[in-house]
């Protein structure tokens, strides 16, 4: 350590020690300030009525909604649609990802399709799919699948590509059968990258499920928002918006925890990036 680094490190440590309680305090201040600003804006005539109800009204509406069966049913339907699509995308995506990572002929053949699929805005399919599939769970799951599968393919590919050659050569030297190689070598080694794909995919899945509900009127959180707003009840609409935000945040944070718990067994491989 050079002396500049020493100074910098000790200054940083010093700052951190002093900063921790201050930051918690400031966060609380920002939270209260944000709510106060929201209340002030909604009380003023800056925006047309209905665009931004007061935070108190939203809190009351959320409190009223949260005890109804309808609320939990909407939440459940959204999550179920997202989960079914994500599960299907995981199965197909991991399989194609491993296949294309193991063979460069397969990778080159699939490259355009994967690029195209990743850039394809899946929600554009709603208009066609709603006519073909109706407004049920099939519609949501299909769109979630299309939106997520390419992400998982790419993450799996990258995970398998990063396996150090020495590991694969060892496995080959022992003449490990292909099925065993995939199950016991490739999947565990690529697990962190695949899990990242699933975590990102889960956020996208919730997003697409809600978008589908907003656009097609399929039952769930998105549909509740539209219904409440059409029924001139913005506080209820905002109650569901807060729910959607907490859902997205919760899914992401929960999966982050889960991910670090699952891959804890695995020491970080040097030069993995």
């Amino acid at each position, binding site marked *: 350590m050079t002396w500049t680094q020493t100074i910098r490190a000790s200054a940083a440590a010093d700052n951190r020690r002093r900063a921790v309680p201050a930051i918690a305090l400031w966060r609380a201040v920002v939270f209260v300030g944000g709510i106060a600003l929201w209340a002030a804006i909604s009380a003023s005539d800056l925006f047309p009525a209905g665009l931004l109800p007061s935070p108190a009204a939203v809190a009351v509406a959320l409190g009223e909604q949260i005890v109804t069966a309808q609320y939990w049913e909407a939440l459940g339907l959204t999550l179920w649609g997202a989960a079914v699509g994500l599960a299907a995308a995981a199965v197909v995506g991991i399989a194609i990802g491993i296949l294309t990572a193991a063979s460069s002929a397969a990778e080159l053949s699939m490259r355009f399709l994967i690029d195209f699929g990743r850039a394809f805005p899946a929600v554009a399919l709603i208009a066609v799919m709603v006519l073909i599939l109706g407004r049920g769970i099939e519609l949501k799951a299909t769109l979630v699948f299309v939106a997520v599968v390419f992400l998982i393919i790419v993450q799996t590919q990258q995970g398998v590509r990063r396996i150090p050659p020495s590991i694969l050569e060892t496995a080959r030297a022992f003449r490990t059968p292909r099925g065993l190689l995939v199950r016991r070598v490739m999947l565990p080694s690529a697990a962190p990258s695949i899990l990242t794909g699933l975590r990102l995919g889960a956020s996208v899945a919730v997003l697409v499920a809600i978008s589908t509900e907003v656009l097609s009127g399929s039952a769930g959180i998105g549909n509740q928002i539209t219904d409440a707003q059409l029924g001139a009840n913005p506080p209820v609409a905002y109650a569901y918006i807060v729910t959607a935000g907490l859902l*997205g945040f919760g899914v992401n944070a929960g999966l982050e925890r889960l991910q670090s718990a699952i891959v804890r067994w695995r020491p970080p491989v040097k030069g993995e990036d």
Partner: protein
Amino acid sequence: MNVKSYGPVSAVLLQVWLPVVLVLAWFLVSAQSTSVFWPPLTTILAAFGDWAASGTLWSSLAYSFGNYFMALILATVVGVAIGTAIGLMPRVGQVLSPYLDFFRTLPIVVFVPIVILTLGVGRGPKVFLIFLACVWPILLNTIEGVRSIQASVFETARSYRIPLALRIRRVVLPGAAPQIAIGLRLAISIGIVMLVVSEMYGSTEGVGHFILQSGQRFQLPETWAGTLLIGVIGWLFTALYMFGEHRVLAWTRQDAETRRSGRVSKGDKS
């Protein structure tokens, strides 16, 4: 992994055969299709031709992508400006981080019914919605990009007493550029999703409106044509952007040193 590598010709052939086979298969299989839902590919293309011939295609594209680019530029300016400010003030960033995380994961589509039902189906609300969706990835990636600049770089800039404006222009923004570019790439695809959603929810013009209207009239070939058009545009934008980014940010990659010295001696030929 030791995977086989291919020569340039076979690599191109390998990349091309599957898409071509799939399009041909679609063409052949759908040719006899009598299903209302899966019209023959030729019918879809004919519908697209009619759409282009009628002239509404061009006005729709101009309307939709006029909104899109306006929102994207606005989001870039606002996102980079606020992101740089927060990135330069680590304390502020630390305080705001849970809230930024919340808004990042909040699906912006939830605001579509609110904004469109209250503010109407005009241009403004759509630009606002696309902006709202695009600004987060740019903002968050800018913050991350500024943070990733090494402390020694800032210390050097400070020891030379480089004024703030110059420091931002010549040190901070170039340093954060690769990460900002990632944010922009995300924003480009998120923006197209938002464009489609906001127009399909309620509009009187635009590509999304065309798709919605054809769907409601049960004109499947037109609906398919619009959907495929959006897909191709989505892919094209990302591909063009990646190509541009690759060239513009050539200096940030590993061989930056050799490139730069080469540029000095042999002139700019990146």
